[in-house]
């Protein structure tokens, strides 16, 4: 990645990768990946202290993708920022590829944790953050959750734990696109007010437009709050491809034919 590349340009590239990866693999979850491209672009361009030349560097910031089904965006950002060869991306999910349809760290440099079942990555992230606190390390731990994922009870077990152990080195970002597998979150399992819920668990809560890079940076670069931080990023599922936006079909469908061409055209013209 050229040093001059903006996070916005990086995000655009991630979206193109995500669409291409879904096209070539024939697998689902393209809209979930499009929802989080700006978040990971900002993280990897401006926030995370990582070294693509030394992915396991002890002092690195740790990034846990808890919504592991949306991993094409993570694989793409790692490839674009130099952790591995971007040529691997379009082989995702295909026979013998190291890149599975839910994120794995085996054989994939830069991936912190393998996830795929929801409500796991955030708890492992809390364990990494606890180590940082007890050993007085200066790394920070970031974790990206889906809002549908917040249905899982383990998320709230983690929320209790992080508050109890004062894990102010932990930042959870909720990709709140308002949709989950069978419908709008409020129709499936209404969270009512996610911000209030995290606040009630003793977290510092910030909110931002999850597609505004400036807003995301401001929220993430703000001072440590003395409590674990939850950033609720308001996003659009399928963001960047008009016919995928807020359309649950694209949680499942892989773009082929005209859909693929139109999606790429929209992203390339942006």
């Amino acid at each position: 990645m050229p040093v001059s590349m903006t996070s916005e340009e990086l995000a655009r590239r991630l979206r193109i990768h995500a669409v291409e990866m879904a096209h070539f693999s024939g697998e689902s979850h393209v809209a979930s990946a499009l929802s989080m491209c700006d978040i990971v672009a900002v993280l990897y361009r401006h926030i995370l202290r990582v070294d693509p030349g030394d992915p396991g560097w002890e002092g690195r910031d740790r990034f846990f993708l808890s919504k592991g089904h949306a991993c094409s965006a993570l694989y793409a950002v790692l490839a674009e920022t130099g952790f591995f060869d971007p040529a691997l991306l379009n082989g995702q999910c295909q026979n013998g590829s190291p890149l599975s349809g839910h994120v794995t760290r085996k054989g994939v440099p830069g991936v912190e944790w393998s996830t795929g079942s929801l409500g796991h990555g955030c708890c492992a992230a809390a364990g990494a953050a606890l180590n940082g606190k007890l050993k007085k390390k200066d790394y920070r731990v970031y974790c990206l959750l889906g809002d549908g994922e917040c249905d899982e009870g383990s998320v709230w077990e983690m929320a209790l734990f992080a508050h109890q152990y004062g894990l102010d080195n932990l930042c959870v970002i909720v990709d709140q696109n308002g949709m989950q597998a069978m419908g709008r979150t409020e129709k499936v399992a209404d969270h009512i007010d996610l911000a209030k819920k995290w606040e009630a668990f003793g977290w510092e809560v910030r909110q931002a437009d999850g597609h505004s890079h400036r807003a995301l940076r401001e929220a993430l670069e703000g001072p440590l709050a003395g409590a674990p931080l939850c950033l609720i990023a308001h996003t659009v599922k399928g963001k960047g491809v008009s016919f995928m936006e807020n359309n649950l079909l694209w949680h499942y469908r892989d773009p082929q034919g005209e859909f693929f061409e139109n999606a790429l055209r929209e992203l390339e013209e942006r």
Partner: protein
Amino acid sequence: MKRAFVSALCGWMKEKENLYLFTADLGYGVMNPLLEEHPDRFINAGICEQNMTSAAAGFAAEGNIVFTYSIGNFPTLRCLEQIRNDVAYHGANVKIVAVGGGFAYGSLGMSHHATEDLAVMRAIPGMTVLAPADAAETAEAVRLAIETEGPVYIRLGHGGEPKVSHEQGDIRRLLRLKIPEEAPRREAGGGLPRAALLGTGTVVPQVERAAALLQGRARVEAYSVPAIKPIDREGIVRLGAENEYVVTVEEHNILGGLGGAVAEILAEAGAGARLVRLGLRDEFTQEVGSAEYLREYYGLDSRGIVRRIEELL
């Protein structure tokens, strides 16, 4: 047994600065020595077994050894997917400890009877599965867990288990019990049927006693099997070749635990012995009572074991 566990762990904490215990809010009183000696190594994760287990995995990945601790089925079945995906898949150095395996919490009812844990944990790739019978085996299980890189499950009893009779030995092997000769032994024992009794965990004293009661009617050897996985394959094949009967006894479903493991080995080896698995016959315990009462009810006390073997002979 749980006191032996805490005592052993405290000892190791002096040597290993990266050794921690996570509990899901259990261990009142029994954890006092640890809290006094190593309060900074004790993490109470609350009644949150799922987060405890995944967080232990994430914490272990940072170079620590973590024991997770709770009772019965809580640290295993309650958070099984966390064990599978976060602990085992990642090869995390997490040692899962369940107090009250089998019938130990007999009076508390079915929810607290851990009678499928060995089978379930054995099916997890890379998981070592240990079920010590007494305090000495427990201390060795803790040592083996710490020396083993990767996930380990330790099933403990509750407390007050009698000492079993073998010499201290490598708990990865079958440990031969010294059988007291309570009945007059026929010299040489020629012509008597030969049987090997294998028990694991808190049922081992019953196996020991059953073997003693059978002296004179059969040539019986008895073993404690603290390591269910990896199990002493070579030892089991040898017993299969040398005996007419191999009998497994466990406070567990006969599917997938000690009996299951031994069945797999004997079948694959084409060993000659007939296998008899004693345990719960694919059922939940419907009875409530002390562990002693439940063992008797399900035929896993010494007299029940003897009765079953006499039927065979």
